[in-house]
């Protein structure tokens, strides 16, 4: 495609310098309305832009509805994160004397109970009422196992044994900021790449200087 007009626009100069075939600027500019209309259509599809009868109907409907006006002025729903509550309490006023009283003395502790069983009884409520499933037969562990993913054994392993101390498996916390070692490794990599490019550049420059290129 040859240009017949004698006007030397910068566009045509650019076109000449870019060897003509690769960048057809006239065609590229003709694509602009196509792209613009595609963008427009996508916005309309998403509901971001409304016009004409639709927009008028939407505004009228929104104005007719006080609830939508309230929604416009609302700061939104409360977040699901932690909430701050400034007041302490509530302060107990009615039952305070009852609750402050010391727990009743435990008569069972002094009774003729074998020493091995006394440790088990220590876990029972101090009011002396022993649940049937704890008093007889297989004795389950008295408290819930604190580590997630693991369970207590079904039966009590016997007096004097300690609960198995299995440390909880904590998932590693990935920080968004790399560790210093990572930074150093990245820096080392960049330096090596730079060094390599520099070396190769010197070689190429040497070839140029020797007249091979």
């Amino acid at each position: 495609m040859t240009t017949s007009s004698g006007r030397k626009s910068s566009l045509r100069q650019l076109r000449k310098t870019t060897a003509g075939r690769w960048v057809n600027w006239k065609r590229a500019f003709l694509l602009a309305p196509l792209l613009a209309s595609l963008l427009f259509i996508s916005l309309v599809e998403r509901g971001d832009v409304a016009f004409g009868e639709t927009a008028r109907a939407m505004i009228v409907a929104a104005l007719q509805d006080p609830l939508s006006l309230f929604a416009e002025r609302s700061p939104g729903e409360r977040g699901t994160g932690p909430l701050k509550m400034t007041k302490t309490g509530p302060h107990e006023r009615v039952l305070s004397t009852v609750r402050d009283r010391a727990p009743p003395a435990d008569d069972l502790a002094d009774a003729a109970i074998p020493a091995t069983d006394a440790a088990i009884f220590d876990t029972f409520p101090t009011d002396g009422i022993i649940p049937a499933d704890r008093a007889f037969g297989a004795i389950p562990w008295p408290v819930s196992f604190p580590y997630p993913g693991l369970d207590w054994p079904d039966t009590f392993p016997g007096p004097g044994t300690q609960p198995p101390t299995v440390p909880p498996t904590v998932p590693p916390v990935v920080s968004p900021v790399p560790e210093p070692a990572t930074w150093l490794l990245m820096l080392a990599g960049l330096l090596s790449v730079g060094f390599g490019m520099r070396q190769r550049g010197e070689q190429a420059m040497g070839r140029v200087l020797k007249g091979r290129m």
Partner: protein
Amino acid sequence: MRSYIRAFIVIAVGCVVVALFRPTQEEPAAPILPAQADAHGAQTTLIRVPPSGPRIWYGADHYPRLSLPDGQQEVVRSVLNITKPMTFGSFVWNDDGIPDGPLWVRVDLGKQLLSVFRGGHEIGSAVILYGATHKQTPTGNFPILEKQRDYHSRTYDAPMPFMLRLTNDGVAIHGSNVREDWATHGCIGVPLDFARLLFSAAKKGDLVVILGAEQGAGKA
């Protein structure tokens, strides 16, 4: 080459024409109530051209109605023109030219908003605090049981200025420090200046309607 250019122009013009005369999906129905709100209660409609003036008046022939939890409806004659989201601690109070009339208060927990209506005209609106998840604010219709200007809570040993008691177990509307992500123990906290205005406008026996998130979105 010229045919190429022509083809592009035709396609581009065609796209624009299709975009302009796209058939509309949502035909406006007659007075829309309840609102077409999405799951979060937010209106998807964007009002690009906000109406001017301090309030939006409704024509006498189509007053919208707000439904209460007990099935009754309250007529709305005008609402305050607040098109921007309100910030925590801010409020609007404007009863210029609004005649006396029955007063009721609409509390929308989901939207964290309170509106005061007098004779069907909204005269005040504020962002509120409400009860935390384990100390929830009850929903329903509550007439104001008691008014006290300088109330001090015995339960929480805390000042509750301009207290409007709603329930006998201690839920009230009172002045608070309204900030984002703060919560109460079940009361409804409003900014102190707004509490003063509401205290002077409301009287014992006036209705306070507390709506949960679903009721406020018009789904219940």
